[in-house]
């Protein structure tokens, strides 16, 4: 009996074009569009290199940290370089600055000095990088290669977002990467359409088919378990397809620990399922309205989590952090991001737990409604 219901629920979901579009097709199309858009941006970035100068006197030559950092950031052979560096005497560089051949120059004595002529995004980036190198080299003495890489990436995102972020403790978020993380997260949440639809078919107060089911000798609990089981499997297949597509076709890098990435996607999908259960059992509206509601709220979630540009995420995180604290798309995105950039799992685990709490709250509330066997009105 369980198997019969399960298989038929699967059949119904896979044959429903609308649901398959939102959970399977739409994310892949969106991913492809992202890929096209970003590959252009990244090409442009290569030309968007800041011209700077460095006074290469003994002070500079003897400073390991600065040497290492700028030779990396100005490496002509590296696609990620952000500076085109002219070395020379202070006079020569001052001259170049007057002619606006460079945005600014650096000279070191006991501290680092930056000489600039105006205040633009290039100057900000330059200043930011020098400050970062200063902080790091003062703090740990030894400048690790990885942290320079991060500074560089963050500088790039600064240039792209054109937002001056003062919070320099925030690590880099690569532009493209965060978009794909939100894409995965969005797809997990779109799974809500599947669980909503499946559940709607068996609730007598939500659909006529549900009345049929309710007068049959199958217990409500068994029905719910079988149909949500089917919707969860369908959802996971959709997410898996997106992973395969983004990894193998779009060459997105999710980091080295793919099992933790998958675990996060499964927990994320579960939160999507919970959202669908919630919408199905609470909202007494027709299926299309419920579908629209889920799609709408997921879009808003994704927008706040940085899908349409990381600027939004910065603004939300800075001004209204509560929004993203209860935003499941952000929890998934942030978890993926934490997995990629941090060596410890604290932040990853925090996000997993947040997602589970989010899911169980929704399921608990839904359960109160789902328990009913008889209705005041249907």
């Amino acid at each position, binding site marked *: *009996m369980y198997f*019969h*219901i399960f298989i038929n629920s699967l059949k119904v979901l896979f044959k429903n074009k609308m649901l398959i579009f939102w959970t399977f097709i739409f994310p892949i199309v969106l991913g492809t569009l992202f890929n096209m858009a970003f590959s252009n941006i990244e090409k442009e970035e290569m030309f968007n290199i800041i011209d700077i100068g460095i006074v290469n006197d003994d002070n500079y030559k003897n400073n390991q940290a600065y040497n290492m950092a700028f030779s990396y950031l100005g490496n002509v052979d590296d696609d990620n370089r952000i500076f085109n560096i002219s070395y020379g005497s202070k006079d020569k560089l001052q001259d170049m600055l007057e002619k606006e051949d460079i945005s600014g120059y650096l000279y070191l004595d006991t501290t680092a000095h930056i000489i600039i002529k105006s205040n633009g995004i290039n100057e900000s980036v330059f200043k930011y990088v020098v400050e970062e190198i200063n902080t790091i080299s003062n703090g740990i003495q030894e400048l690790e290669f990885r942290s320079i890489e991060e500074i560089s990436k963050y500088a790039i995102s600064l240039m792209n977002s054109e937002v001056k972020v003062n919070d320099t403790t925030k690590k880099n978020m690569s532009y493209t990467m965060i978009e794909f993380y939100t894409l995965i997260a969005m797809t997990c949440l779109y799974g809500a359409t599947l669980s909503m639809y499946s559940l709607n078919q068996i609730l007598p107060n939500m659909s006529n088919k549900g009345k*049929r089911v309710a*007068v049959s000798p199958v217990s409500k609990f068994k029905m719910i378990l079988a149909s949500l089981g089917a919707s969860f499997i369908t959802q996971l297949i959709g997410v898996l397809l997106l992973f395969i597509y983004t990894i193998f076709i779009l060459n997105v890098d999710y980091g080295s620990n793919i099992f933790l990435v998958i675990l996060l996607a499964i927990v994320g999908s579960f939160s999507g399922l919970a959202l669908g259960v919630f919408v199905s059992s609470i909202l007494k509206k027709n299926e299309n309205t419920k579908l629209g509601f889920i799609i709408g709220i997921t879009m808003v979630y994704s927008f706040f989590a940085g899908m349409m540009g990381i600027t939004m995420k910065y603004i939300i995180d800075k001004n209204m952090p509560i929004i993203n604290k209860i935003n499941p798309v952000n929890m998934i995105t942030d978890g993926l991001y934490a997995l990629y950039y941090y060596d410890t799992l604290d932040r990853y685990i925090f996000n997993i737990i947040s997602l589970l709490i989010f899911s169980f709250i929704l399921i608990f509330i839904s359960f109160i409604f789902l328990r009913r066997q008889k209705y005041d*009105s*249907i």
Partner: protein
Amino acid sequence: MANIISVKNLTKEYGSLKAVDDLSFYVKEGEILGLLGPNGSGKTTTINSILSLLKFNKGSIKIFGEEMKPDSYDIKSKIGVIFQEVSVFDELTVYDNIDYFCGLYVSDKNTRIKYVEEAIELVGLTDFKKFYPKQLSGGLLRRLNIACGIAHKPKLIFLDEPTVAVDPQSRNSILDGIKKLRDDGATIVYTTHYMEEVEILCDRVIILDKGKIIAEGTIDELKKLANIEEKVTIEAYNLSEDFLHSVSELKNVLEVKYVDGLLTISFGKGKSNLINIIEYLKEKKVDYNSIFSERPTLNDVFLELTGKDLRD
């Protein structure tokens, strides 16, 4: 014969509206019971209450001698329900729809294949097994709806207005199918607002209005409730006021109506009414084109009891 269903003092209110008002009745084994009433008279509410889908304010429901509750799975396994609205999966074919709902009752695959085929046969959808609901006409869709509810061979079947908006051919096929189910031993509760269907189909009828039973019995018993015994309609032109008045004075005549050349005379109890009027016409030398006589319908009964037409 045993009572399959007994309903006692069922009352259901929606807010301040009494949709079902102190209803008591029973359904006997092997009969087709008709619940006849205009839209909004409480037929669907009654059925949903009996099925334990709706909470009701008062009353008790017994089916197969036991109290009906949401978890009375034993009772439920012997019931089939066809709801008023078509409820099938658009994503599944005719065959798969019936198989799905049948599978909620019948686990054995081979039995199910047999049952599904038989249901398809019964409602006459053999040529449409692979069709999707969207490809079916209204009538065929209704037939599919019925097949989904009866494929598991229930002992007790509820049909809630299964012929609404159906073409005559489908309607006849549906009514024949229902009779066949009864002949095969099922007990049937059939709701409708079409009195013609009740007259063709039902062994016993309960007439509902505003949530109350206003009459109950076999068709013949009910017709006796109408004062009218016979209605005679005569096509004749240019009848005078005097003549019409004299007709209304004749024996057994209750009412005389004359509209657009059609004279309708309602007779109360009594014999030979038709012969009497034909002789009276001859005597008065009135020319007429045609004449025919009708027995009263359930509509006349309804009219008599409520003062309004059953038809919308």
